[in-house]
């Protein structure tokens, strides 16, 4: 694919995106408008993340792509292939070895380091969108720091269901200022949003980039008497026995038997390699 520039986008476009990224880092949680390009994959497949990755990658980088925590989901495979072809960067499935990680819907279980960048694919960057559909209104609300509507929503959840009924894309407040959508990660991942790595968020269709610099305070919205709770399925991983990882639920047979496995495939693999064994591990190996 030598007819395309390194990482597909032309240098002008990458510069424009880098400016947006730098602005995003300077104003944590603020959604920076950028002139998103039409990418050769559909909107909704991660075009925002792909553009941010394209503007971030250098030839020396090692790139990892996960979707639902896994390296081998079809769209992760497809995006990894895209950058192998257009940027020729080396790729890895090991979180540890990656310098840039593009993700959809998960944060890896392993703690990320200062020399790593994680790029999130974002469908709807506006945390207030489903409370107020108009961009003109929500931008005003952000600039006035008017987040009452969000608290009312959380309160209504509690009065109707007895708990805050948001399970993913759980809103956070960044650096005490902007309310931000952490992308549709499960709320289990929210505590990890305070990390050592640089976090970049790209929304292609909605033309927004935002960022959380390392060591930035990220607070999941809650109430004193209804504190935020990072939840997961109350099971151990059936392959590696992990009790601290987010689990996928898999239906195994017609009788509806379930098994639970780590959603982070690299985490699960590395645990099994170091001898951890889950309930169904042997059966699986057989």
């Amino acid at each position, binding site marked *: 694919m030598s007819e395309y520039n390194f990482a597909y986008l032309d240098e002008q476009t990458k510069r424009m995106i880098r400016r947006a990224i730098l602005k995003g880092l300077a104003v944590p949680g603020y959604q920076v408008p950028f002139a998103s390009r039409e990418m050769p994959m559909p909107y909704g497949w991660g075009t925002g993340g792909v553009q941010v990755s394209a503007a971030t990658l250098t030839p020396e980088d090692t790139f990892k792509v996960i979707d639902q925590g896994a390296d081998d989901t079809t769209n992760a495979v497809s995006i990894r292939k895209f950058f192998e072809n257009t940027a020729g960067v080396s790729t890895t499935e090991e979180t540890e070895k990656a310098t840039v990680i593009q993700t959809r819907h998960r944060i890896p279980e392993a703690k990320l380091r200062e020399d790593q960048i994680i790029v999130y694919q974002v469908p709807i960057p506006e945390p207030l969108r489903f409370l107020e559909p108009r961009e*003109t209104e929500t931008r005003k609300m952000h600039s006035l720091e008017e987040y009452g509507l969000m608290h009312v929503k959380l309160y209504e959840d509690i009065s109707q269901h007895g708990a805050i009924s948001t399970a993913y894309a759980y809103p956070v407040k960044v650096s005490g200022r902007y309310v931000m959508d952490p992308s549709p990660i499960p709320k289990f991942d929210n505590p990890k949003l305070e990390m050592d790595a640089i976090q970049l968020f790209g929304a292609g269709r909605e033309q927004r980039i935002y960022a959380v610099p390392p060591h930035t305070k990220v607070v999941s919205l809650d109430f004193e008497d209804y504190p935020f709770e990072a939840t997961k399925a109350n099971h151990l991983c059936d392959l590696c026995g992990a009790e601290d990882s987010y689990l996928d639920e898999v239906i195994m047979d017609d009788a509806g038997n379930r098994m639970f496995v780590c*959603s982070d495939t690299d985490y699960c693999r590395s645990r099994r390699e170091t001898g951890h064994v889950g309930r169904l591990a042997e059966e699986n190996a057989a």
Partner: protein
Amino acid sequence: MYVAVKGGEKAIENAHTWLAEERRGATDVAELSLAQIREQLSLAVNRVMAEGSLFDPNLAALAIKQARGDLIEAIFLVRAYRTTLPRFGYSNPVETSEMACDRRISATFKDAPGGQVLGPTFDYTHRLLDFKLAADGEAPKAPEGTARQEPTPHITEFLKGEDIIQDEPASDDTPGDLTREPMEFPSNRPLRLQSLTRGDEGFVLGMAYSTQRGYARNHAFVGELRIGKVAVEMEIPELGFAIDIGEVELTECETVNQFTGSKTEPPQFTRGYGLVFGQSERKSIAMALVDRALRWEELGEDNLGAPAQDEEFVLSHADNIQATGFLEHIKLPHYVDFQSELELVRKLRREAEERITPKEAAE
């Protein structure tokens, strides 16, 4: 027994091979050539050029072939290609008053300089399946007249003379470019028109139709509809003057709409404008109606709360590449988010049952 979902790469590769096979169809049927698509499916080609925002009939034909006739997919292919092209510069505005018209009609005047020219239109065909075409697609030669040499003036120019139609003041401001700058609201008319001309034909049609049915009705007459070729000129800095770099086929629609006026200002007709690549009649009329509806503020009309008056609503949802991408992405894996909801709903149900059960026991 759980088998991890592995082998995504192989699956993708096989899917692509199968897709290519399906595209080709039965191999005992002759393969479509790009020239056949370009010449015989020209209205599909036109739509792909219009919504793909790239005037190139051969590339549009290729896209249609590759997309197996799915026009939105073809538009997407053209858009993704277009975005990689370097910008050498910008042409001068095209002069539609100089258009070599194949078709030019006015619904507001029985006759006007330049005449009513029906051109190649479906308008008065009877929609009867022509079974003869199934066997033999040859067409008789249409009689030819002498082409009009002088330019065909715009109908609205005649109304302007009387000051009876709203003036559109000329401007040399460089309009924004929605493919290079993020769309922000409130927008402006050049950006609205750009968005509408590349907007989904079905969406723009539906919006326009809603105005006709009373959601911000603006009572449009087709003042003029013209289809034909215009020259594209570009200033070449090294030369210091503009030269012809090619020609494009366009459909232009100018509507004459209900008048406004007040005690201090005499009543005047208002306008809507549609301009679309190729022969795209339905789209350009629809565009003009929606353009007119979106001008409510500038014309001092009331916001009736109609969808077609709502700039943010119309422009945010007109693009079929954005729409289809986001719509279809919900078929991608979402099992992490679904799992989190599953756990939450199970928990809420457990808690609800605990609340309900002791009450029942007491009764």
